[in-house]
């Protein structure tokens, strides 16, 4: 069957979608200086008013139901995205109740919050209604709540606002305290996601190992307190020991790459002997890509999403009008832009299974090819890596050593936000930004290999089960 007819040609390549991200809010009560979301406040606020109206009049839920009817029994997880979800918290109770009734197999929810409104709001508006609902439905349910916390006050407050660190920690601890001892169906997973900016890495390298101790001991202390508070409660877990993630894809230079290599090298000198609560290695994100290559040899011959996000493959984003997008980033860009670029919406109208909806099918055809063509992605990266090496912006060895190029590519795949790269850097999901390779191609790959060998010898467990990989 040909394109231009009923589009059946494409259907064979469609994979099940089981994750649905909901563009739930579009405004924020903070203005973190590094956040990727546009700080066009009037437009964000205006869109958020529209979203609230749709929440109030029930059209948001109705539009989701109409659009996602064909996959009603397929959806397993929901996520709230957009901007800060808690600002629309008063609408959550009815909203989630209706969705859990409608999607019989949804058993998890996640969102990330700046925690500014505190534990009481989170508990009253989100946790409490959820616990009641899943009890009524008698459905096992996991809720992952990610709290923004980049590290000690000096780091976290600098990028957010004075008092942000204390506020987040208070929220974390109070939430643990507020959770009941047991619940037949509900578990809350509290996590922190620390992002480490290159300027702080530089400061750590310059100031020496004491600064590393200071940074990581903060995580040890947070995790210690959390564990003590959890005690023998079965309703809550916490992962808060600070495993930093990188600014992605960042604006890295060759010099940043050299400094970053020194930073990774220093990890081996951090004294962990007195720590009891830490979970996982000190740094893991790039290693996840290496593990993909080492432990999943099929990645080289089969379709595999290689730990990149699954946006457009088995995860989609839906907005209050029922429009579907590859991911929340695109949704936000479209919503805040006057210009409706052809390439962005995955569907122009109502239902995603409509075989005549060519935009949906075409976009999916393109997006899935990203997820399923690892070697093709590597060849695009290969082109960039070779040029960087020839220009002297990364190690010259990458000119001649293809295995080294594969390894360099693999360390970036755990970080890679293809939609972000397309939208903000290279205009195409297959073309990785040069920034990545400058960061890792100036000695860091070798240090990452050494560091993980060192941790492996110490028997440190990975932060998530290897079967996830």
């Amino acid at each position: 069957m040909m394109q231009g007819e009923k589009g059946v040609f494409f259907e064979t390549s469609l994979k099940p979608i089981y994750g649905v991200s909901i563009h739930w809010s579009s405004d924020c009560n903070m203005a973190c200086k590094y956040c990727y979301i546009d700080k066009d406040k009037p437009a964000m606020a205006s869109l958020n008013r529209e979203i609230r109206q749709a929440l109030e009049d029930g059209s948001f839920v109705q539009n989701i139901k109409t659009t996602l009817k064909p996959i009603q029994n397929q959806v397993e997880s929901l996520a709230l995205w957009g901007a800060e979800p808690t600002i629309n918290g008063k609408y959550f109770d009815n909203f989630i109740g209706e969705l859990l009734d409608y999607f019989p197999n949804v058993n998890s929810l996640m969102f990330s919050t700046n925690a500014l409104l505190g534990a009481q709001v989170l508990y009253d508006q989100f946790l409490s209604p959820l616990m009641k609902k899943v009890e009524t439905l008698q459905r096992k349910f996991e809720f992952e709540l990610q709290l923004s916390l980049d590290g000690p006050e000096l780091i976290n407050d600098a990028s957010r606002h004075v008092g942000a660190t204390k506020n987040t920690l208070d929220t974390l601890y109070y939430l643990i305290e507020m959770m009941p001892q047991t619940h037949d169906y509900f578990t809350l997973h509290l996590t922190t996601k620390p992002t480490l900016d290159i300027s702080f890495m530089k400061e750590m390298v310059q100031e020496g190992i004491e600064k590393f101790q200071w940074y990581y001991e903060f995580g040890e202390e947070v995790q210690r307190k959390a564990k003590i508070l959890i005690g023998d409660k079965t309703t809550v877990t916490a992962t808060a020991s600070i495993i930093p993630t990188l600014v992605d894809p960042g604006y890295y230079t060759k010099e940043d790459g050299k400094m970053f290599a020194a930073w990774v090298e220093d990890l081996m000198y951090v004294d962990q002997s007195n720590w009891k609560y830490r979970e996982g290695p000190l740094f893991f994100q790039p290693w996840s890509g290496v593990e993909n290559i080492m432990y999943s040899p099929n990645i080289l011959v089969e379709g595999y999403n290689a730990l990149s996000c699954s946006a457009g493959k088995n995860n989609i984003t839906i907005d209050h009008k029922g429009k579907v997008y590859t991911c929340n980033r695109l949704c936000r860009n479209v919503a805040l832009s006057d210009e409706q670029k052809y390439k962005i919406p995955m569907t122009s109208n109502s239902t995603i299974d409509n075989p005549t909806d060519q935009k949906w099918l075409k976009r999916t055809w393109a997006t899935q090819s990203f997820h399923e063509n690892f070697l093709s992605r590597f060849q695009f990266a290969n082109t960039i890596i070779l040029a960087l090496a020839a220009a002297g912006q990364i190690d010259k060895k990458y000119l001649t050593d293809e295995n080294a190029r594969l390894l360099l590519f693999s360390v970036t795949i755990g970080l890679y936000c293809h939609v972000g790269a397309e939208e903000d850097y290279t205009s195409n999901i297959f073309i990785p930004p040069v920034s990545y390779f400058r960061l890792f191609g100036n000695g860091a790959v070798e240090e990452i290999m050494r560091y993980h060998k060192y941790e492996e010898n110490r028997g440190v467990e990975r932060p998530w089960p290897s079967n996830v990989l």
Partner: protein
Amino acid sequence: MAEQCLVNTTGMTAYEQQNQELADFFLNEYLYKAYSYLNTEDPYSKTLELIISPRCNLGCKYCYVHKYRKDIFSEDVYDSELTLKNLDLILRWLEKNKYNPELDIFSGEPLAQEIGFQVLEAIYEYEKNVDSRWRIPRIMIPTNFTFICSEELTKRVDDLIDKLAAINIELLLSASFDGKYMEQNRPFLYNLDLNMNVERDDAYYDRVFEWCNKHCYGFHPMIYSKGIKDWKKNFLWFQDQFKKFDIPWDVLYLLHVRNEEWTAENVKDFQEFVEFLFDFAWEKLGKDPRALVDWIIDGKGFNLLGQPFVTVGRGLTCSIQNQFTVRVSDLMCYPCHRTGYKDFYFGQFIPDETEILKYHNTNVELLLTTYGIHKNVMPYCMECPINNLCAGQCLGAQYESNGNLFVPIPSVCIVSHALVASCIKGLEKYHAYGLLCEQLSNRTILAQLDYVKKEICNNATKN
């Protein structure tokens, strides 16, 4: 709130600087060295493609200019005065650096509007004073040849050819029309700023062929899905015209339009046409299988019949990796004339204080990919069983169809498969397939041909 993408504000300047250095390094190695008059090994290996106007007097149904003009080169960007001013800057930049690439001039239709003639006049006026060692050697313009409708315009073109020839610049025109029986795909829209009575009757076509023959210009009609049933008739009309004007029968360069519109029925008709071409060539070549094979391998075969067997020495088979495209109105640089969408600007030429152009980088990653990528590593193409027999697709058409420059259009893939199958069938019919395979040394190509041949047998058995 998601926090994936922090901005390292302190590193921005250095980051941008290094991106600029990378772009400059690449352009120097890949492009400027080839542009240099000192490059005598392959002086035409890289060209400079100048996009001078978004306007065209025809509205060809398959043409990107007609369909996507607003997005690809809007009237807001076009400015004839700026075009001439910037052209002067480009010519100064070429002279200053002693670069002498071939210039390819694109627009809608350059020779149906005053700016096209002004550009050629300006090039002549500038280049006549340039040292002959680094004077540009050639200007190539694909044109729809409607200027032949006007005696006055034809004379202007003739005069320009002579003037440029006098300073050793060859003006090459390539006949971009599809033939008498494809006129329905190429309707006249309106006159631009030059008046002509565009009536493409037999007398007009006679003038075109006579004129092309006089100047030894070639013909490159496009085979579009719409009207494909009439292509045999159209082809025979070309042959009649060639005979009439004593033009060799095989100068025709056929290329199928790689847009998404192909349907199953169109593909069937396309295959019939390809097989018809084999029949025609067989008769012309004296029913000699060896002559048929040589004709294809030597790169003739109307282009189309040789496509599966003839390889080119670059990653993408269109000319994109041999050229550098600049839209003259705003000096914006992007991969090719078909990809002028604002998402794909990878840089811009900006004059410095001495009015000499400098390349200003915007998207070095796209620049590197455009010139470094190979068609066989595109998504889906990597696993395709005929990737070595396929000419690949058009990046612009891919973007227009599925939103991604590098993801192939399934219907065009089917056309490629069909072309390979029909070429094999055509060769087999005249006992030339084995002879052709003997001349191919690439084992992958041979294995892929074998694969398609088996598919054909299987299909025949099923049918």
